[in-house]
């Protein structure tokens, strides 16, 4: 199968390009996405290709970006709205949570809102507390929203295409530190379905469920752990809602140990949800030790580099937590 090397950023761009070429109802809007190409360059070049009607630069107005995406989705379009930083979804929260998420149910299943909200989350760029949050936990709490968090170019491409074709509001959470990561992906068109996790590395001693950039750190840690004789199985849920719990359960039944790693604050984070769901499943009987969570500190993301790194799990933290769980 012919492949091509793409960055995560390029993979997202290819997904957008393919879906816009495929369906004239797909269009993009957001702040500085047109001539600037988006704050992280994802949509660079699409203005030239698709024109200003379909690559719309908006005023700095997150509420109406989300609400107008909703309104156009409700009337037959498939908008992809970009919110420049995940922190800013809070500005459009009424339209996302009270409106978009609820319309299908509230209207008795008689209308749907096929929209995608792309937004980069996460820390590591020195942008501090208002540009570094991982707010996916807030969104997963809301019935009616789907939440997608790809960790690599292959998934970013296939999942974005599936998200655009989905008939629900999908929040598509990218990660700033992943944009330049490279990977070979098929030249031929492909999709990655929502609600399907992937085993990123097979192992026998410990199941490690990691989200977004933590998958990359977990893979590195797993290489080192392998040298110590610890075999780690890494599962990337890829979509948090819907969650492919089955894959996690099956892995836990095999390894008897579960470590969950995410960047978001530990308190109320999605790791607590995964932990609970596994405990409530028949996998509980297979556990040799209690499930552990490794997650961000319950603090705003600080600025100074050392503090910023210390606020969220790093490779060493994953190594430590894994050793403790297996030892």
């Amino acid at each position, binding site marked *: 199968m012919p492949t091509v090397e793409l960055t995560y950023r390029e993979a997202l761009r290819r997904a957008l390009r393919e879906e816009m070429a495929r369906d004239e109802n797909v269009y993009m809007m957001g702040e500085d996405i047109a001539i600037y190409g988006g704050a992280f360059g994802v949509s660079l070049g699409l203005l030239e290709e698709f024109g200003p009607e379909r690559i719309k630069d908006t*005023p700095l107005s997150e509420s109406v970006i989300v*609400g107008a995406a909703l*309104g156009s989705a409700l009337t037959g379009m498939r*908008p992809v709205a970009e919110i420049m930083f995940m922190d800013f979804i809070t500005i459009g929260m*009424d339209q996302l949570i*009270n409106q978009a998420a609820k319309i299908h149910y509230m*209207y*008795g299943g008689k209308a749907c809102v096929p929209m995608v909200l792309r937004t980069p989350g996460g820390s590591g760029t020195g942008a501090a507390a208002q540009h570094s949050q991982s707010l996916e936990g807030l969104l997963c709490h809301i019935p009616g929203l789907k939440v997608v968090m790809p960790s690599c170019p292959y998934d970013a491409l296939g999942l974005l295409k599936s998200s655009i074709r989905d*008939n629900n509001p999908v929040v598509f959470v990218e990660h700033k530190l992943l944009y330049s990561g490279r990977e070979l992906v098929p030249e031929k068109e492909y999709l990655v379905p929502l609600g399907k996790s992937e085993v990123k590395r097979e192992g026998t001693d410990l199941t490690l469920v990691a989200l977004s950039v933590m998958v990359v750190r977990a893979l590195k840690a797993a290489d080192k752990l392998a040298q110590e004789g610890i075999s780690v199985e890494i599962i990337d849920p890829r979509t948090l809602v819907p969650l492919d719990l089955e894959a996690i359960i099956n892995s836990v039944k095999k390894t008897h140990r579960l470590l969950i790693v995410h960047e978001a604050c530990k308190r109320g984070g999605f790791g607590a949800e995964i932990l609970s769901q596994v405990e409530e499943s028949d996998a509980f009987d297979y556990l040799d030790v209690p499930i552990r969570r490794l997650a961000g500190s319950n603090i705003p993301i600080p600025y100074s580099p050392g503090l910023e790194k210390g606020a969220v799990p790093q490779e060493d933290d994953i190594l430590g937590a894994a050793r403790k769980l297996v030892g």
Partner: protein
Amino acid sequence: MTLNKNDLIRMYKQMLTIRRFEEKVAEFLSQGTIHGTGHLYIGEEAIAVGACRAIENEDYITSTHRGHGHCIAKGADLNKMMSELLGKETGYCRGKGGSMHIADVETGNLGANGVVGGGIPIACGAGITIKMKKLKRVVLCFFGDGAVNQGVFHESLNLASVWDLPVVFICENNFYAMSTATKIAFKIKDLSLRAASYGMPGVKVDGNDVLKIYEEVIEAASRAREDKGPTFIVCDSYRWKGHSRSDAERYRTKKEVMEWKKRCPIERFKKYLLDKRYLTREMTEQIEWEVNLSIQEAVDFAQKSPFPSLKTLEQDVYAN
């Protein structure tokens, strides 16, 4: 577009239908037959009817928590409306939405809204669809004076203006956002002045004059259809009833309410039609009878309809 005699009579009948429908809802609210809350449109009928008469079936509206009048004016089925209010399976939202969420997207009613100002950006989105699909349609976006102080009002009117979206923003100024008087919440006296800062026309109109509203919306809608952008129309009117079921109305005087009742939009239009000899006393009685019958039929239909099964509880959270 000039309205002929039959159009005018239809408008009168529609205003009366809203009034009688809301009176029935008021009765059900006080009896507890409707278990949620309800926000009644009594006194403001001219706005919905005048505005919706000015658009076509395929055009869109977005509505508010006080939305029954907009639904009826957009041509909603009274049976399905009443069923929804009674929480029945046969309601517009199969009993899942209630008063504040009645919608019928297929006929262009994009929905009432429980959040003040919540529908304004949604109207912009429908405007984007119209423009991108070159549909030559228009969106009427209804909201109250309270919404004019929401942030989305600003974001949405600005976006609609810079993108020339085919939206007519219609503020139903009934002078109170729940209990908060406009004179407390606004430094300006004429809310239509806000339009100037968005570079769009702002118009103030007597919200109890159904024909004047019709004329203003016709003009605004034709501008919108010609790609000349949005308009902001402020209709001054008054809600006769409290904000919702539980309003003790401590913020206004009985005298003020009585003054506004003297300016009843329906009586005023009826007088106009009688003076013009478009209507006779006999005809008004006939219309009254027909309207009452349609409300009674809706009540019967709703009361005979089943409640939704618990099996539907977790259905339709996500679309396929």
